[in-house]
């Protein structure tokens, strides 16, 4: 039996050596590689679009989202040099920097909690002069729809990359097929 114990000890030692040798170089090998983006940590869902008058010639488009922090760690989302916002285009799926769309302030998401978030874009727009409460004429409605449609018609979704936390937050589109400025209505 003592030979068996010797064999066991030898094999255990050999296994330890193999384990150590196999781990050490691979770690060195993968260290320089970029980490994968975690797209499940922060989830978002589309909430709505608002058109807000800045002055008679400019409006602000506000895309609202609900955010959920699914992790066990607190998270703060704010604009900064390590945060990149891009738009994924429908036409070719490419990612491009959206035209003057910015993050509205910052949002603090405690672990496993929800929060609201907004992306904003300022656009030139001639605000209708005769807007009375409760009534918006069809032409005026089309004017607003056209404004929104021009902004998002080719955008699949907005994506925010937090390079510090390696989070990828996808802001899904909620506007597809809903903001057509066409005056035609098909019956079928």
């Amino acid at each position, binding site marked *: 039996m003592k030979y*068996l114990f010797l*064999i*066991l000890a030898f*094999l*255990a030692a050999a*296994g330890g050596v193999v*384990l150590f040798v*196999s*781990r050490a170089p691979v*770690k060195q090998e993968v260290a320089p*590689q970029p980490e*994968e*983006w*975690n*797209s*499940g940590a922060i989830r*978002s*869902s*589309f909430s*709505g*679009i*608002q058109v*807000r*008058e*800045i*002055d008679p010639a400019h409006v602000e488009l506000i895309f609202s989202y609900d955010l*959920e922090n*699914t*992790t*066990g*760690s607190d998270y703060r989302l704010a604009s900064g040099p390590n945060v990149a916002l891009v738009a994924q285009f429908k036409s070719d799926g490419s990612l491009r920097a959206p035209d003057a769309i910015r993050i509205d302030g910052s949002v603090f998401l405690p*672990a496993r909690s929800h929060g609201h978030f907004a992306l904003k874009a300022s656009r030139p727009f001639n*605000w209708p002069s*005769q*807007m*009375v409460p409760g*009534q*918006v*004429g*069809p*032409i*005026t*409605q*089309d004017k*607003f*729809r056209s404004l*929104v449609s021009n902004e998002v018609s080719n955008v699949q979704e907005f994506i925010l990359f937090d390079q510090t936390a*390696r989070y990828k937050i*996808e802001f*899904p*589109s909620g*506007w597809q*097929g*809903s903001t*057509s400025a*066409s*005056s*035609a209505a*098909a*019956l079928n």
Partner: protein
Amino acid sequence: MAESSELIGNFSSDANRRIHARHRIRSLAYVELGENNGGIVLNIGEGGFAVRAAEAIIEDSLPQMRFQTHTSAKQLIASGEIVWTGNSRKEAGVRFVDLPADALGEIKTWISEEESPVNFKKPMMAVARRTARTNTSASERIVEATEVGEVIETSEPRRAESYFSRSSIFQQPPKQSPNAEPTAVSEKPPVNWLDFRVQIGAGWMLAAFVIFLVAISFAAGMAIRKRDFVGPSLGPQDQASQNNGEIPSSVPPATSPAAAAKISNIEIVDSSNRQWTIPAKPPIVHANQDAASSSAPNMEADSSNATRAAQPNPISSPAVEKKSPVLLSLPETSLGASDTVAISSQRSLSVPTDSSPGGSQPGKNLHVGQLVNLVEPVYPPDAQKNHVEGTVKLHATIGADGAIKDLKTLSGPPSLFPAALTAVREWRYNPTLLNGQPIETQEDISLVFRLPK
């Protein structure tokens, strides 16, 4: 057992008289005691040896003994005399007589080899293999004594017989009777062959098990390495377990763009924080097919009477199977508002039905022309002066070209009619197309006049 005790006594008393110490023989050594007898060397010294013979030893001297050590292929020849014998006379002590010097040297070498544990191992295993078969059949054991007085367990006496039967230097010994007394045999190897084989098998199993454990630990190491590599890009569950060791129980499924909530409304907020909400989608026209009858449509003739679409077509011919048109009413919409006038309208149009099998469904490929030029009425100064307010209702027929073709007043303050009619006559629409063809539509217009505050 009595004979064994006697043997012990013989060995012990004999050992005290010896000049040269006897050494236990771990290997098997055969000795030819004469022409018809032979035995196994039990122990040996430079002065003699103890032997267990196959046949009873009757002689007092052995003039020509031949034996061979495992260390040399050379056969030693020596003469000796019997010093003692057991009761059965098969065990005896032999003293060498005139032992040649070379034979003495061989015996010394043999003794030294037997004393060395390293050199013992190999011959012992060879002997063990040779004796395995006889050992396995041992059913009874006896206690035997060696010359040095230690008591060991040995297997049954038949083992020795098998040695004789296989030995090339011995003749076939006569079989012993079943009642033959137990005889001394050489010491059995310390490890039984079967036990040895079992140990080897268990060892390999354990070795395989350890190799398996090593493989598992290696795989675990690789997995840990991968986890280290992935780092913060773990999924939410992994990350949760990494952070707090628990998994969120109510994590909703990943939101895909296709599953995202669609915009239902666009919220409008002006600089005064007044809010409006408009549908993100233009209103969808729904068809009312409650007027289905057997009359065929006639768009041109019936267009001016769309609101009365259920009435019989005045120019319909009995010879031609026709059906009454379907009246489509669009939702009432607000067209615009100012401080003094709010305008709303409801469009309606009649769509023919086709009873033919290949005919199109009512309303199919219908595109409703929208208002593109809205002129709001100016509040008549006289009406303002007289504080006249109210709602003027008009019915307009919009031609295929989108212009107001016919306009009628339905109700309201008469002093407000001119302003309302003047403004609405300027309205222009995009043509309404049915299956690509422009058609007339009807519109009920409401103009709410309110005095400015």
